[in-house]
């Protein structure tokens, strides 16, 4: 515990993928900055209870599944034994801990003053009060709010029983339940479901809308859903979880939907119905910073809030709640503070679902194109025609490209298949550069890789691709 009373040109509140890049950029450009974070380890939700632990555990799930699939190749593995303590410790220390330290070292090396384990709340438009490991006050000239978001927990589910978890609880892996209900068929629910299913849990997913991953195009979800249905016990769409009740036998969930049992008992329930901005309790009412009705902090193109010297980035500043969006906004915010003509106006923000197969997309989706009346030609390259996919025994994937019918400019790309997440960056570059199909089709992609599917989709826009005949154009 220590007490301080500081003044700083720049205060960054929140040390996640928005806050710490902002602090580092600012320091690199000579702005003295203090970074305040509420947790013992830097990196925010992403490092401590989100992106990082989930991807580490998904890797383990993949190992388990691949070992199972090795059977068809003539390699036999016995069923794995999972040492949960070791798994938890490995994730906590060798993954999360390593990154916590890494971020800490970056900050130290580049001159960012870090105050950990401490919450900052506004006293007025130019000062905050500190509570936690460090107490006192900080006066600031400029401030960047990067406080992120928290899992939404509707009242109906907040029954105070530890068996009803949010993503934080689930990723802490308290045990491997025999049967788990996942409320919400979005990316968080499906990723966590994938982890637990590989570890042996029977998974039931309940989704309120008529499809998993509502934001994704249906043709991308289809191969994933088929595979999930093999690994999960059940997926109920158009179904609502009316309530949950704690009993000694388990959590009893009341379900409302067609052809769905009225109630079921589970060892654990994951509530993954979304996230909401972490803007309450910051003392913002003592400043001129306005919130919208959902609790987001509205910002302009430069990320300035309604108080020009207070900026906001990341999940707390609006959708999409993606770590890479926060990092990109961090750069814009710092450039704005440096007086440069910066603005946050990307042409594509990629999205990745790290299930197996992965789904990734960037630019406009088909659903958006239809809603906004944007004309497009759709080119689909089925991975059945991919040599690389065949060497991996995973031909269920699909790469599709939406292009402008006249100019053949690439409007959007969607991929479902293993490694989709690693492939989508090429699409982002193409869209940002205003590339036309010819640009991609004429760029030599290495063989045999899955990236060839992107090149061949572009070829389809110009006629036939090497491995797919002249397509039936699905144009609008």
């Amino acid at each position, binding site marked *: 515990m220590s007490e301080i009373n500081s003044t700083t040109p720049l205060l960054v509140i929140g040390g996640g993928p928005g806050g710490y890049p902002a602090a580092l950029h600012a320091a690199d450009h000579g702005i003295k900055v203090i970074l305040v974070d509420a947790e013992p380890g830097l990196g925010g939700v992403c490092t401590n209870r989100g992106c990082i632990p989930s991807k580490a555990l998904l890797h383990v799930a993949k190992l388990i599944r691949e070992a199972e699939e090795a059977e068809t190749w003539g390699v036999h593995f016995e069923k794995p034994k999972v040492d949960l303590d070791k798994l938890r410790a490995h994730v906590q220390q060798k993954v999360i801990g390593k990154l916590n330290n890494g971020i800490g070292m970056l900050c130290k090396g580049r001159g960012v003053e870090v105050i950990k384990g401490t919450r900052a709340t506004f006293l007025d438009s130019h000062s905050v009060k500190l509570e936690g490991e460090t107490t006192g006050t900080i006066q600031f000239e400029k401030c960047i709010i990067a406080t992120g978001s928290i899992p939404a927990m509707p009242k109906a589910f907040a029954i105070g029983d530890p068996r009803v978890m949010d993503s934080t609880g689930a990723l802490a892996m308290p045990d491997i339940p025999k049967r788990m209900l996942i409320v919400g068929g979005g990316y968080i629910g499906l990723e966590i479901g994938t982890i637990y299913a590989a570890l042996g849990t029977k998974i039931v997913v309940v989704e309120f809308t008529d499809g998993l991953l509502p*934001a994704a195009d249906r043709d991308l979800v289809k191969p994933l859903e088929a595979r999930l249905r093999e690994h999960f016990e059940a997926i109920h769409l158009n179904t609502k979880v009316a309530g949950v009740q704690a009993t000694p036998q388990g959590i009893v969930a009341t379900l409302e939907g067609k052809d769905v049992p009225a109630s079921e008992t589970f060892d654990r329930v994951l509530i993954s119905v979304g996230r909401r901005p972490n803007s309450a309790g910051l003392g913002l009412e003592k400043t*001129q910073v*306005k919130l*919208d009705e959902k609790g*987001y902090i*509205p*910002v*302009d*193109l*430069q990320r*300035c809030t*309604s*108080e*020009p*010297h207070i900026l906001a980035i990341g999940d707390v*500043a*609006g*959708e*999409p709640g993606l770590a890479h*969006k926060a990092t990109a906004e961090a750069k814009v915010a710092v450039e704005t503070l440096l007086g*440069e*003509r*910066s*603005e*946050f*106006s*990307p*042409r*594509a*923000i990629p*999205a990745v679902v790290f299930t197996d197969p992965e789904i990734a997309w*960037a*630019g*406009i989706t088909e659903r*958006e194109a239809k809603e*906004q009346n*944007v*004309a497009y030609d759709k080119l689909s390259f089925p991975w059945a025609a991919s040599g690389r996919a065949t060497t991996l025994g995973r031909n269920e994937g699909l790469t599709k490209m939406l292009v*402008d*019918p*006249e*100019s*053949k*400019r690439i*409007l959007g790309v969607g991929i479902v298949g293993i490694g989709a997440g690693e492939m989508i960056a090429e699409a982002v570059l193409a*869209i*940002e*550069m*205003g*590339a*036309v199909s*010819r*640009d991609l089709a004429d760029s030599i992609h290495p063989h045999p890789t899955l990236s060839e599917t992107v090149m061949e989709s572009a070829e389809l826009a110009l006629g036939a691709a090497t491995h797919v005949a002249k397509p039936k154009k699905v144009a609008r």
Partner: protein
Amino acid sequence: MDFRLPELGEGISEATVVNIGVKTGDAVKAGQMLLEVETDKASMPIPATFDGTIVNVRVKSGDKIKVGHPLVEYSSAGVAAPAPANASRKPAEAPAKASPAPAPAPAPAPAKAVASGGGDRREFKLPALGEGIDGGTVVSLAVNQGDTVKAEQELFTIETDKASMPVPSPFAGVVSELKIKAGQKISVGQVVAVIAASAGVAAPVSAPPPTQTTSRSNTETAVATVAAPVKTQTEPSNGAGKPPVPAGPATRRLARDMGVDLYEVAGSARGGRVTIDDIKAFVKKKLTQPATPTGSGGPVIPPLPDFSKYGPIEKKPVSNIRRKIAENLTIAWHVAPAVTQFDLADITDLEAGRKRIVDGMPKGSPKITMTVLAMKAVTAALKEFPNFNSSLDVPGGMQILKQYYHVGIAVDTERGLVVPVIRDADKKSIRELAKELAELAEKARTNKLTIDEMRGGTFTITNLGGVGGTAFSPILNYPEVAILGMSRSSLQPVVKDGAIVPRLMLPLCLTYDHRVIDGADGARFTTRLAQLFSDPIRLLMES
């Protein structure tokens, strides 16, 4: 408390009071119209931003007042949220990026949101200082951060390359942030201060960046719609609603830094993508180009009124061809001061001969029309008057005299006017010209002309004789410097050898670019044409 004339728009600093709607003692609600002012752009109502009672009306009809001038004195019942004065105007439609015709270019700096709702804090941006001026140097500051200022009070002095001038505060308040210092170079549109306005002041209208809708039906969204987080009123600097210019992030950043409007830059990479080199070339060109013939400022075009107010209307999207025609004609109109020289050619004998030959020709032969014969006359005249077969390169300081004779013939089609070109018209026989013209006209009507068939012309002929009319003034087909229009020939009484005889007279209407061709030559050209038309043997021998 005083209610003052709020900001009315970019470049507008004063207006005339035309209509006062309130008097002393009136109770007034926010949004209620107080009076109307007229600027050189439009008339606009000025609504109250307060609830209160009018104590005193400070202006009368006919007064010329500046932005910030007190309009009425009132006692308030409460201050309503500031409303922008008549924000329903849209900025004038500017021509698409290929056109050099000037449009009042809006400040390309990314428009920061006016601090909305943040108390009464408002960002004061450097307003337009004059035509062709996009910024200057701060000479000296007249106030400090924290000072209270009155409306119109000088904040600082700026020196541009035209003059030094004071920059006043648009409204009364406290300078909560002064973002500039002496010696600093600043640009129009840049935020120079944040002023916390006193109660009762109407919010200045932030000059909206161009939000035009183009007539293209394939629009791409500018920002990735994986839910863009922007919740305030500004648009990205590449203009919302328009298809974004293909340009990579580094290129866009450079454009932003240099204040270049990407829509004005020609893209040299495949698919029209704009590269960093394109931006550099664009800026270089702008800096080294002498004042273009179009001048650095055309008239300010007022926004279109809402026509549906006056009766039913139908809206049709403008076709690509119509858009192109409009662009080309606007360019020609702006670039070349043109004169139309009228004359009459006696084609009695020529027409008689033409008819006789045509009647005797086998069926299916291409018709020898007056247009075909005109081509012969024109190419003969062009050889004698090479100035008429040239183009003018103003920045290069050169006149380009063409030693080939490609004649464009204006063809009226359902979709609009197209001009196929007959190459080497001087080298072709009348029969060949007739055949080629008939083929090209047919292709034009059936929309089968290739781009190449419409390029390369050195002179254009436009014959409306088949349609009607006595004379007209054709517009140059830029970058050609002359165009011959022909109207309907008619029998007219003419004095010939002392007697009045009916002669078939063809009206010639020659428009020429007076930068290149002087009046005397214009008349000489038409005289020569008339001479060739009036004597078939002469036409045969001298063409």
